[in-house]
């Protein structure tokens, strides 16, 4: 099979981008979407043209590096999978496929299809952890955790930090990402001492980064490669409200500066 690609090309953050159209060489329906880009890049390179820059690494849907908006949808046509797990058998011979970067103000384009997602790291640094020093942990089975709580925490912890939720949201909200982390730790007994401080610190950092507000349209959940549930946003909102009611503030001195 062959397809026509309309791909976003952009030299760097300071230069405006544009779409370029490429006819692919012969493809195999069992190829992954990224293997198709590999083949196109080999072809471009051989023809003396610059290959398309795109993010990828593990190619098994867990590292969260790959991105891409394919035909308007972050991570492509299927629910619950990342771009790297999208296969050409989902497309038809002769299709025109639109390929864009994740677009959001807090994710500036680095080059072509690669964007800078460091804002998510800074949210994590604001409070996405349990403050336990190496060596100070108690015996693991001294703290039983109900299976239901552990399973639900795992559902939230499955987030791969790709940022598709932000790219899908009309407000570029990062609520699903933040809620997943807040819920993962907040559901476990180990996470209780910092539960309210954590939610306030992470939400405040999220706002500082310029992510938008959540209006619960659910597009984030629909594109999430790990199908993280919208329920976690409700849970986070509840924790945030309780924190405000309790008058809990973020720890001082934790705010990370947002680069200009």
């Amino acid at each position: 099979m062959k397809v026509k690609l309309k791909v976003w090309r952009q030299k760097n953050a300071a230069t405006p981008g544009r779409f370029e159209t490429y006819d692919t060489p012969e493809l195999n329906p069992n190829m992954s979407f990224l293997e198709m880009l590999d083949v196109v890049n080999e072809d471009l390179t051989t023809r003396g043209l610059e290959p398309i820059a795109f993010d990828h690494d593990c190619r098994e849907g867990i590292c969260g590096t790959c991105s891409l908006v394919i035909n308007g949808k972050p991570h492509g046509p299927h629910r619950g999978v990342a771009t790297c797990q999208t296969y050409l058998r989902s497309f038809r011979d002769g299709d025109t496929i639109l390929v864009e970067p994740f677009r959001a103000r807090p994710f500036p384009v680095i080059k072509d299809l690669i964007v800078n997602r460091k804002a998510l790291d800074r949210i994590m640094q604001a409070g996405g952890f349990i403050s336990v020093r190496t060596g100070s942990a108690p015996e693991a089975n001294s703290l039983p955790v109900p299976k239901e709580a552990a399973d639900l925490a795992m559902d939230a912890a499955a987030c791969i930090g790709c940022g598709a939720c932000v790219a899908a949201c009309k407000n570029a909200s990062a609520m699903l990402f933040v809620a997943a982390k807040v819920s993962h730790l907040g559901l476990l007994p180990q996470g209780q001492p910092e539960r309210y401080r954590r939610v306030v610190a992470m939400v405040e950092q999220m706002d500082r980064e310029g992510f938008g507000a959540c209006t619960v349209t659910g597009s984030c959940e629909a594109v999430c490669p790990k199908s993280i549930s919208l329920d976690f946003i409700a849970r986070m909102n509840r924790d945030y409200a309780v924190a405000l009611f309790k008058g809990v503030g973020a720890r001082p001195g934790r705010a990370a500066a947002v680069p200009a």
Partner: protein
Amino acid sequence: MATLQAHIPAGPLAQKWTRHKFESRLVSPANRRKYEVIVVGAGLAGASAAATLGELGYRVKNFVYHDTPRRAHSIAAQGGINAAKNYQNDNDSVYRLFYDTLKGGDFRSREANVYRLAEVSVNIIDQCVAQGVPFAREYGGLLDNRSFGGAQVSRTFYARGQTGQQLLLGAYSALCKEIAAGSVQSFTHSEMLDLVVVDGHARGIIVRNLITGEITRHNADAVVLATGGYGNVFNLSTYARHSNATAIWRAYKRGACFANPCFTQIHPTCIPVSGDYQSKLTLMSESLRNDGRIWVPKRREDCRKDPNSIPEADRDYYLERMYPAYGNLAPRDIASRAAKRVCDEGRGVGESGLGVYLDFSDAIRRVGVDKIRERYGNLFDIYKEITGEDAYRVPMRIYPAVHYTMGGLWVDYNLMSNLPGLFVLGEANFSDHGANRLGASALMQGLADGYFILPATIATYLATVNPTARPSTDHPAFREAEEHVRGLIRRLLSIRGRRTVQSFHKELGKILWEYCGMSRHEAGLKKALQLIPALREEFWQNLNLPGTDSELNQSLEKAGRVADFLELAELMCRDALERRESCGGHFREEFQYPDGEARRDDEHFAHVAAWEYQGPDKPPVRHVEPLVYEEVKMVARSYK
């Protein structure tokens, strides 16, 4: 000439680590903040080391080539992490985990290191639970376990099929905490391209910013490499596409010895190759072998038939037949070789004939489809996405693929290489897995090294260093290293040939898989030793590398890594040629018993082979560190 001093502490095995810690030197809390430590990599080993050193009060700089420290390939480990907790009351112990690991490694690892690993394993679980790692639990709220290859107890802790991800996120969260506290400085999109050695000590690194192309110098009192394994030298592997050997290889070229480079692990349960375009191979967790039964048809003519139509009597459950005691949970090297053997006999399944069945129908009948879905649901989903087949109805097809490298930079008991001040952790070092790693032991080793071992042992070295006399980045050694890196990049960009980087990588991978893969022999290795230098020469004359060095240039990144693979591959073949025995993952066809089992030669090869670089035009020198077993008797490894 390098000297290899393993620095194994004296005393009984079970007391070595405790005693060594007591006898180690300390750096006082007030003095720690004067020391700077560079940690390269943020996988399990790197992130846990950087975070823990930061907590202790050292000033840490952490470098990753990813966009964030949470991406390292530890994240893809599926099945679990071993620990000698004996929560299942199935007669497990530190000693048993130690013995299983040593035996699993075919008696080619250091006894004292392996014992320490087993000892520390219990602390890792405590640490991870305290960080909020959502391990699987039983209804009573306590931690659940499962079994893995090479063990007859259930000691593997897991978080669905995403254990590596959850452990890495735990280590990453600890790292985030320290970055926020200001004790760790995080450099992302930053690739280490050279090690700086001043007066024989590792004192810094040269780094390229992958976004801007800017080259910078960084000095420190010690350099820690936790940069993972080198299995991508084969091109096709279960590694992430960017995993590479550049950091350890360039350290090797600065004088660090490279130990047992031919010890690579071929994992038995991966999804078979489907075409020439393939960019990577996907692992199906070893945990599947708890419930899946591996078989091929007894007769060749049945290989193309619908597997569900082949009656029980016509199936060969070859692992259960050949290794009744361990059955489908035979160790990885043994299971892989057995798969190759039945496929070589013409009994492989699937289009290519390079595949065997992993069948869950018995387990589904036994415990029900829901239970199987709960245990392995995400793995069945991955399988379906890739192959389009439903493994609840038809057996999975699997075949071995390159998965891990036991070899790596040589380190002593303190995890320090022969270059003082250079520490190497996790898969990047060679220390604990001998000639074959058992499943669920890589996560254990990465975290043991990073959380517990390095933070204790690095002080012994740092206590001998005066941080106020740290060489500045203006030192001639830094200038020379930076010039070297710039020269290499210039050279790559000036070739202007016709072949892409990927085409060289693919060709190299084919050579290695053919001659230095699951089985090796003298003639093949000698052939590879001719083919590889020829390919390398063509690379340096005919590489087509687009773009410039002052921007994000993924082809340039890859070219540097493939240039290193083209050299490393040669060393692997050299090492495989010199090791005239079969052990673990290193199977030399000349050295086998009549039944096809590996024939180890303890008289001549019970040692670590550590190679020292001698310059581009001279062959490397092979040093030997004898493996002395004080406690355990070396025996023939049997899983029958």
